């Protein structure tokens, strides 16, 4: 057990060393996109709109948190792709006597850290814009689950995809549409029912709704929580399996 923790620590240490060196740059660059969303949609456009009797700003802050944590955690893992295909530096981990799951867990935790740091920035910016948002332990849990799910998707992509180009396509064809459609900027009720069927099955939709409910002090939907846990566990199994298969 102790050795397993040590192995997780090793993998996490590597990512921390890299992040630490670029921490200031990382934090500043992470402010740009959310700031634009807040200005354009919350402050500019949102002044004339109200949703469910509240301000549009209050409505989109949980959505922005959800989509941003998705993007950051996914993109924190994508360098693993280059390490596998191009630099071959994953060979070190494959031939070392470590617990294979430790590689997966360490990478996921490092992505979680990056995504939570950038979420903290968004919360600070949102409060500065006058948004109302209640942070609770359950709120943080949902946010963390969302980060882990998309880090896992990034991990699976990094293990299975062979070219840089296709890696970019995951961003364009999967993450970008989800950013806008999964209950982040508007209710999914506004979508045609067939599209809605698909959108409602996606994890980001559940995260948006959970964060929105919890952020305004309402009850969380047990079904949505279950869906997130389900994605998290199933994807974890895939991550471990694909990592172990590197030595096939």
């Amino acid at each position, binding site marked *: 057990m102790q050795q397993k923790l040590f192995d997780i620590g090793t993998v996490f240490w590597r990512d921390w060393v890299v992040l630490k060196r670029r921490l200031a740059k990382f934090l500043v660059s992470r402010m740009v996109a959310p700031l634009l969303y807040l200005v354009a949609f919350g402050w500019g456009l949102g002044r004339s709109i109200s949703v469910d009797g509240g301000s549009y700003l209050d409505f989109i802050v949980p959505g922005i948190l959800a989509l941003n944590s998705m993007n950051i955690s996914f993109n924190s893992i994508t360098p693993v792709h280059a390490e596998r295909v191009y630099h071959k530096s994953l060979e*070190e981990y494959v031939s070392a006597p470590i617990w294979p799951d430790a590689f997966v867990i360490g990478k996921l935790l490092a992505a979680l850290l990056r995504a939570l740091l950038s979420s903290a920035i968004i919360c600070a910016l949102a409060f500065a814009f006058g948004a109302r948002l209640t942070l609770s332990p359950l709120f943080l849990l949902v946010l963390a689950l969302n980060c882990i799910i998309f880090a896992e998707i990034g991990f699976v992509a990094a293990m299975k995809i062979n070219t840089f180009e296709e890696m970019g396509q995951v961003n364009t064809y999967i993450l970008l549409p989800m950013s806008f459609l999964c209950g982040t900027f508007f209710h999914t009720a506004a979508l045609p029912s067939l599209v809605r069927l698909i959108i409602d099955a996606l994890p980001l939709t559940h995260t948006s709704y959970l964060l929105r409910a919890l952020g305004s002090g309402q009850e969380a939907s047990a079904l949505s929580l279950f869906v997130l846990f389900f994605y998290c566990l199933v994807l974890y199994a895939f991550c471990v399996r694909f990592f172990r298969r590197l030595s096939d």
Partner: protein
Amino acid sequence: MIEVRNLIKRFPHRGKDGKQTEKTAVDGISFSVKKGEIFGLLGPNGAGKTTTIRMMTMQTRPTAGEILYEGLSTREEPQRVKELLGIVPQHINFDQDLTVGENMELHARLYHMGALERKKRIAELLDYVELSDVVNDGVRRLSGGMKRRLLIMRALIHHPRILFLDEPTVALDPQVRRRIWDMVQSLAKGGVTVFLTTHYIEEAEALCDRVAILAKGRLLDLDTPANLREKTNLPSLEEVFLQMTEKQSAAKAI
């Protein structure tokens, strides 16, 4: 003691006609290596040397066959076997986002070394190949030969009992090459088993207790360099090598 029995590796492969087939990279080889021996695997490009090493170091799974290290099977005890091995790959595979020192430290941590031991050992090894000055440089900045030297030192951090060197002295200047030879010899004297591949036949002649000659995935012969010369009545190992591998491709051509 290393025991390799009937090792086979086939890769999926698309043939000339575009059909999916299989390509046999290693075709049923068996041999054993004694403790403290320097064992050379020679063969032309594409003979299957790297594939053999990758199977022996558990980076790729054999299609069939068995590999035992002091009785431990790579299949049943992968973790325990991995602790024993040091690997110098044919290609440079450093973590490009880390410095020289951090790459070494990552390796030491992966092999469960404590903080004090890590520090001392890394300093000692960097010193040996005169890389102490670049410890805080990014690995991208090293010259080709410096990268090679670092690659070899990295494999030694955790005091492996068995050292795999896949063309270790490519791109090294003559002084450094001699230095690496000396090091390999003194490691073997200390009981470390060395398994190496090289295209420099004089390197194999100078270092190896026994050499195996591999071509198209099959072992053509395995003996001491002296015996190989004697058997074939040729003056140098290089001649032996050329004759054997030529014969084999001639046999294929007919």
